[in-house]
């Protein structure tokens, strides 16, 4: 696994590198000392894994994740902010407390190996497009989620924000629907109208609607209208 270490302290990065020498399956491909550098490196190197400090000058680790389109696996490293990580759903992520104990690191690495295997078993989407196996980081107030795109059934634009529908949650992310549409794999996600992008694997039924449009029913009961312009395209896609 190719990993990127993000921490503002040189000594902290050095210590983690040294500890990782015992785990040859983790290859450290880069180091960043703040969120700006990290964003750049994530886009350039496309790492599988981030070791991420939370408190950094400029932007925090959370803010960094919010800015990334697709989020690699993340292990938070922190001296004393585990309360901040309580915001996450159980088991959604791993974190290491500094000074890092070698045993704890070994546990975290073992968990990562499991996750990586699961990911590789699935079919990978085309390069640089976000497919069903990618995950995004979503923060809404105090709550945070790493959400696999396969669990997101619907994106709905709402002003300058997008509502992300998954499980019973609908947190907002600060992005435009057009920008998101360009990044998503078109074989998995469909732009139903100006307001909506639907996850095709969640479509349960389709009904004709007014003006030549369609009404798509999603598993879970949400209904989304497909505009007339997109309806023809949609029929094409859904038929072989």
């Amino acid at each position, binding site marked *: 696994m190719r990993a990127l270490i993000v921490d503002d302290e040189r*000594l*902290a990065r050095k210590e983690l590198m040294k500890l990782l020498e015992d785990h040859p399956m983790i290859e450290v491909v880069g180091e960043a000392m703040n969120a700006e550098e990290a964003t750049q490196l994530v886009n350039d190197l496309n790492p599988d894994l981030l070791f991420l400090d939370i*408190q950094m*000058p400029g932007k925090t680790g959370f803010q960094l994740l919010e800015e990334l389109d697709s989020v690699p696996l993340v292990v938070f490293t922190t001296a004393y902010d585990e309360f901040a990580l309580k915001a996450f759903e159980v088991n959604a992520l791993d974190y290491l407390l*500094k*000074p890092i104990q070698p045993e704890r690191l070994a546990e975290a690495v073992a968990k990562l190996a499991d996750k990586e295997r699961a990911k590789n078993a699935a079919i990978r989407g085309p390069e640089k497009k976000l497919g069903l196996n990618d995950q995004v980081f979503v923060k809404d107030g105090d709550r945070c989620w790493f959400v696999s795109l396969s669990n997101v059934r619907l994106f709905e634009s709402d002003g300058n924000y997008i509502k992300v529908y998954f499980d019973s949650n609908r947190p907002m992310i600060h992005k435009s629907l057009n920008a998101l549409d360009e990044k998503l794999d078109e074989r998995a996600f469909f732009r139903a109208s100006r307001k909506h992008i639907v996850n095709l694997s969640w479509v349960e039924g389709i009904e004709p609607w007014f003006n030549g449009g369609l009404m798509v029913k999603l598993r879970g009961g949400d209904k989304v209208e497909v505009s007339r312009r997109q309806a023809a395209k949609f029929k094409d896609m859904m038929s072989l």
Partner: protein
Amino acid sequence: MQIGGWLLYALVQIVGSYLASGGISAKRLVFLLAEALLCLGVTHGFRILLNRWRWLYLPMHKLLPSVSVALFIMGLLVYFLRIPVNLMLGRLFNPMDALDIQQILGQSVFYIFVFFLWTVFYFTYHYFERYNKSLKYEASMIEIELNNLKSQLNPHFIFNALNSIRALVDENPSKSKQAINQLSNILRNSLASDKKGLTNFEDELKMVKDYLGLESIRFEERLKTEFDIHPDSPKFRVPPLMIQTLVENGIKHGISKLTPGGVIQLKTSVVDDRLMIHIRNSGHLINGIKRSKSGLGLKNTVQRLKLIYGDEASFRIVNENDNFVLTEIIIPQINSHESINRR
């Protein structure tokens, strides 16, 4: 309250004499009001003397005779003072009667009794108020101690320092040993310091230097420190960990937030027997939600200074310019406030 009390007294007298004789003359009314005014004046004077002689703090066995004598004098005083009032009102006045010893004593006893009630009321009221104040003082002291404990053993700082030291063990063994000494010194100081007392300026300065030494390991070239210490500074005693807390504040909210890092400067000067401590740090104060946490720490500092020095010390934190935040404490020389600190 004084005025209200004596008005009530006059009212009771008026109603009393009205009920007793089934009517009241205008003269009688004016007389009773004037009498209440007289009593008000006398007790007010008594109150000033009570405060000046600090009778509230006298033990009971000294207080009782003093108060008895005072009450006797006050009783006589009112008796003689009301003679001119009577004359002015043109009421019957017989010098022989007025100066008759029995008459004097008889009338005075009544006033002495009234003043006795006044004194009992006054002392009880003040006793409870003092009790209340000392409770409040204790509560705020405990609160400050708690907050200090919380803020002084800043776990984020300690674990980060330990993490840096661990990396330093390979890189620079002698520096890592020094760092361990600095850290243990800080831990010892923050555990041992008596939050109510004062510490020597030099001890506090060493603590600040140890603290900055450790932070320098963590921040490396991002943290620059400057000291400009007035040679007379060691003559002063300062609240323990106060300077350290403020320096830490400057790093936490200033330098650690800046990507290129910054400077922290500790400067002292002595002006008019007062110690001026200036802490400058790179950064900018934001007035708003972001400051709520540090706001608590600063409020603590203000409270501590007030409890130790009363109004003689001062504290402020301001944006000196766009790039620097200035924290200023002014502390008076120890002798001038010993009485306040005797607790």
